[in-house]
């Protein structure tokens, strides 16, 4: 079986005047690629591969490259983490406080409708300001919170993920975390204060809030003697 392939970049038979090179009638056609017969032996010979086969192979590389790039982009943008199953994590799940776990630790695979409460945090930090880390310690299910310091908002409500968001806050005063939206299973979040290196695993319902009263422990002259 004889095959012909036409390509706009190659010979354009439409422009060839009839009778110059051939006395055969050449019909006017659009640009076409002809599908070859299935012949595995032909596939092994690169030079004899049809334009269609070459295009399929080229397309395969392009699509594969797009897939790899997509996965890289997805991995770079992903904030999800694996659940910490250590003893410290198990202990933190019971006490809801940890001084050993790092900021951004994930304790649960799914939200468990935990409603915590307000806290008074007394610390002995000399610094005027500290860093506050806020993250979702369970599933990234679309919980939104807003952080206030002494009644002033630190920004718009934002979605909490397993990767912490940081704020610079004073070491003394009131920090309020307001639950703006529950993505399902209650709003589970954790806050880590750099001033006392402690994480508080807390929770609330939608439109609920938790207040953290930050106080500096003042030492009297008797204490120092």
């Amino acid at each position, binding site marked *: 079986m004889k095959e012909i392939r036409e390509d706009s970049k190659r010979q354009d038979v439409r422009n060839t005047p009839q009778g110059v090179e051939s006395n055969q009638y050449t019909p006017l056609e659009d640009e076409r690629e002809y*599908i070859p017969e299935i012949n*595995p032996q032909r596939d092994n010979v690169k030079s004899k591969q049809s334009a*269609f086969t070459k295009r*399929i192979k080229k397309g395969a590389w392009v699509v594969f*490259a797009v897939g790899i790039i*997509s*996965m890289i982009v997805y991995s770079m943008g992903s904030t999800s983490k694996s659940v910490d199953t250590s003893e410290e994590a198990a202990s933190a799940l019971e006490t809801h406080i940890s001084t050993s776990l790092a900021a951004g630790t994930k304790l649960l695979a799914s939200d468990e409708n935990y409603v915590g409460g307000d806290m008074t945090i007394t610390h002995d930090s000399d610094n005027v300001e500290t860093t506050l880390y806020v993250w979702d310690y369970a599933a990234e299910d679309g919980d939104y919170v807003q952080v206030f310091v002494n009644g002033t908002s630190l920004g718009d409500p934002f979605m909490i993920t397993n990767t912490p968001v940081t704020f610079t806050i004073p070491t003394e005063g009131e920090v309020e975390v307001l639950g*703006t939206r529950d993505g399902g299973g209650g709003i589970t979040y954790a806050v880590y204060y750099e001033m006392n290196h402690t994480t508080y695993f807390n929770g609330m319902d939608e439109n609920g809030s938790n207040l953290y009263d930050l106080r500096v422990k003042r030492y009297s002259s008797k204490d120092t003697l």
Partner: protein
Amino acid sequence: MKNKIANVFAFLWFFGVLIWTLLFMFIVILGILFGDIVVMLKSGFSSTTIGFVFLFLSGLVFGITGWVPAFRRCYYKLPWLYPLSMIMTMHLLVLSIAEAILAKGFQVISASRHIATIIIMILQVIICRIVMCIYLKKNPMVLHKYDRVE
């Protein structure tokens, strides 16, 4: 004999993997459009994205289909399959980028940020569709099996 074995593998790959990938791709494209993008626009809240993950899986399947001679036989038997696979991949890529932009922008509840996100997403879709049109104009998928010349 070798040809028959290759046909068996081609049959298994087509009915076991490729056809399901195309089917899921169709569902995912609809899911991203109506389940993610429209829902995010209506609610104003971000959601998890699935487009890039499925783009990776489909890229892997279509890549293997194109590389392995036995697997790409389906493209010769069904000439519409290759253009369909490529154009659906392009659709999925455009929608996945739009979904990712929207999910990122809607992570913060702010009217100005939401408006900016929606404008960027619309521009991205328009630009990607124009690029897609230019590419397909330069490389048209005109594949006629019935025009084989003896």
